[in-house]
């Protein structure tokens, strides 16, 4: 049977599985070896005489220290191996960059492209055509229709929730569709939309978000003004709109070109190239994008490029550039009032990365804390006439710092100071005249959010600025818990230490139990509260709780050990010269017990002073914010 079986083919998958089985064998073997070595190094073996029998002859070479060293080395090896395995699984392999090897990223197949053209033919029979001008306008010039955008970033649990509310004012020129709907019903006779031609109440397709390709949108919801959920077009329906809009823009561009230079076959071929750019699964590089656009335009007889380019060609070019890097999310709006105004909200959740390489940030993570600073790019200000950005922390936090900085040079921008040109070196100038563009930050008054207002950035070159907001815990918070723990720890250790060093008689072991109470409190206060908060800023409190718990446990252990040593010294006076009572003091690990108590009292006192100073300083800082006068916000970028 074995000779008839197929030979094993070592595919990468099989090899990987094989390696995993080797890993399991190694883990089990190393774990068993570590267990045996650990026993041999630290515990008596069955055939060995009891350690208390000193009369037994001692061997020349002791194997126990060697075994202990081997045990430590093996344990280190196991830990490193397991850690490596976890790191290898956790390492995020960066997605292959488009054109990373210098090749084109256009990878659509003939059936895929044929399907896109079929979808476009279906769209030509539906009432989606009447939405094309508005669709194109909202893709390319969202700032013309977006009156107000409010973006709220809430730090909730481990995730960050982004809520965006957009108020749109749609142009009548782009929305009047009665003529077209009538034509559709007459020409097609196939009213696929069903109700549109008869009721005159067609749906409107509003692209609300140009999301960068490959961006995973989590928990995405779209709502209207009344909070009702809105439908979103699926991928194929969106492709219908995109491919039809592309043909619409090509038709517009052809009006400006020489009719002798174009052919129907050339148009189809150009559209195939453009749709490969738009619908491909990979994001093409800028070089490929420009090359493909130019190749497609040459097929339809448009070769010019530069300042004298027609507006329609420029729009076609920008449409392709935009959709080569982003894909629109299109909401379906079934009702619109006479004012032509819409309010659409959407939300998503995101899990922010947390890079912590500096020691301070590494220590925060090790202590179960997380960053307290959030940085955002207010890029949507360029797609709206006015823009509000709110960064909200939990109620238990307050805004400590807020800055608006140029991401290029790191300079903090003052009120209404903007970048003139971020590409050729930073120039920050104050605009004159009508006061636009303009931005303002809400003053800090102890609130738990930062609020940035921007106006007039829509017509500007994109500004490379970042809002940074830092939050702190509202006092007293866990600092008060840490202070109470530190006081308790200091008093108990001090009292027991004084009693021990003055050699008061011991009547019970209750002090050992009492000394542990601060450690229990530290565990409770420090690790139960705000477990799920995305911001946990109480590094001082956390350090104080850990130090207080450590000193309390150490004091309890010292109390027990010193008692045992004293009792042992009383039973065996002959051994008093080595460990035990020597004259007036008890010796533990070669040091007098009085010094041990002094050290612990000192640590508990230092911890108490540290946490009290932190509590006073932070409480005063917070109180100063609360008492701020309500001044005019003339210089609020602080």
């Amino acid at each position, binding site marked *: 049977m074995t000779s008839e079986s197929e030979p094993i083919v070592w595919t990468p998958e099989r090899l990987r599985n094989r390696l995993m089985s080797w890993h399991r064998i190694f883990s089990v073997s190393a774990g068993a070896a570590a267990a045996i070595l650990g026993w041999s190094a630290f515990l008596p073996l069955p055939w060995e005489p009891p350690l208390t029998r000193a009369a037994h002859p001692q061997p020349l070479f002791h194997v126990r220290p060697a075994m202990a060293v081997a045990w430590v080395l093996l344990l280190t090896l196991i830990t490193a191996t397991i850690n490596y395995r976890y790191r290898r699984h956790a390492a995020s392999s960066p997605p292959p960059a488009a054109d990373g090897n210098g090749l084109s990223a256009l990878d659509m197949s003939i059936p895929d492209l044929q399907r896109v053209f079929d979808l476009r033919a279906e769209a030509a029979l539906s009432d989606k055509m009447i939405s094309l001008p508005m669709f194109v306008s909202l893709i390319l010039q969202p700032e013309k229709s977006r009156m107000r955008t409010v973006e709220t970033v809430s730090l909730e649990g481990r995730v960050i929730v982004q809520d965006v509310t957009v108020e749109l004012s749609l142009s009548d020129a782009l929305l009047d569709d009665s003529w077209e709907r009538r034509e559709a019903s007459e020409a097609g006779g196939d009213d696929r939309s069903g109700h549109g031609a008869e009721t005159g109440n067609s749906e409107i397709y509003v692209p609300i978000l140009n999301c960068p390709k490959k961006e995973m949108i989590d928990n995405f919801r779209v709502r209207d003004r009344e909070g009702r959920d809105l439908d979103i077009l699926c991928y194929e329906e969106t492709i219908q709109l995109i491919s039809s809009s592309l043909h619409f823009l090509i038709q517009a561009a052809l009006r400006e070109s020489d009719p002798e230079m174009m052919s129907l076959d050339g148009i189809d071929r150009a559209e195939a190239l453009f749709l490969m750019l738009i619908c491909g699964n990979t994001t093409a590089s800028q070089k490929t994008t420009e090359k493909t656009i130019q190749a497609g335009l040459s097929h339809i007889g448009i070769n010019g490029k530069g300042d004298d380019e027609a507006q329609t060609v420029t729009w076609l070019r920008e449409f392709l550039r935009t959709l080569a890097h*982003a894909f629109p999310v299109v909401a379906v709006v079934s009702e619109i009032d006479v004012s032509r105004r819409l309010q659409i909200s959407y939300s998503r959740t995101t899990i922010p990365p947390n890079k912590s390489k500096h020691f301070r940030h590494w220590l925060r993570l090790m202590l179960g804390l997380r960053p307290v600073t959030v940085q955002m790019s207010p890029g949507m200000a360029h797609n709206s006439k006015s823009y509000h950005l709110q960064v909200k922390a939990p109620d238990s936090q307050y805004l400590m710092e807020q800055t608006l900085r140029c991401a290029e040079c790191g300079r903090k921008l003052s009120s209404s100071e903007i970048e003139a040109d971020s590409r050729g070196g930073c120039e920050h100038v104050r605009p004159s005249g009508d006061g636009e563009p303009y931005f303002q930050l809400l003053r800090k008054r102890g609130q738990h959010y930062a609020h940035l207002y921007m106006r007039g950035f829509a017509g500007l070159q994109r500004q490379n600025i970042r809002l940074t907001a830092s939050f702190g815990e509202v006092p007293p918070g866990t600092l008060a818990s840490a202070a109470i723990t530190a006081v308790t720890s200091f008093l108990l250790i001090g009292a027991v230490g004084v009693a021990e060093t003055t050699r008061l008689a011991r009547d019970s072991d209750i002090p050992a139990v009492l000394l542990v109470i601060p450690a229990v409190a530290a565990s409770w206060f420090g690790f139960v509260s705000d477990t799920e908060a995305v911001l946990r800023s109480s590094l001082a409190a956390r350090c104080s709780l850990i130090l207080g718990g450590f000193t309390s446990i150490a004091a309890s252990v010292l109390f027990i050990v010193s008692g045992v040593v004293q009792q042992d010294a009383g039973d065996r006076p002959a051994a008093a010269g080595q460990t035990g009572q020597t004259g007036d003091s008890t010796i533990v690990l070669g040091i007098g017990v009085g010094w041990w108590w002094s050290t612990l009292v000192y640590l508990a006192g230092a911890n108490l002073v540290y946490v009290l100073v932190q509590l006073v300083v932070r409480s005063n800082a917070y109180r100063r914010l609360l008492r701020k006068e309500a001044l005019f916000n003339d210089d609020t970028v602080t």
Partner: protein
Amino acid sequence: MTIQSHREAGAALKNDSPDGIYVVEPIEYVRSSSLPDNELLKNQEEVKSLLRDTRKSIRGRTREKISQAIAAAIAEVIKDQEAERSAVMATRRRSA
């Protein structure tokens, strides 16, 4: 007016991912500069005429013609890829 080259949303910044800070990336693609207005879209009659032409043009395309165009476009891309691959290989050989 010159339209400057676009910049991708979330493009790498000098201070893109500072240490110990949550960086919330922009949700939306933002072009680096605004577009000039398209006068064509402001003229309702022109828009109607253009939509009519678009609809007729799409309906006038036959599946066979489109298939030929797709095949030609894909052949063009493959040819381009081959040329790029040859150029890359030649560059690697030279550098080796």
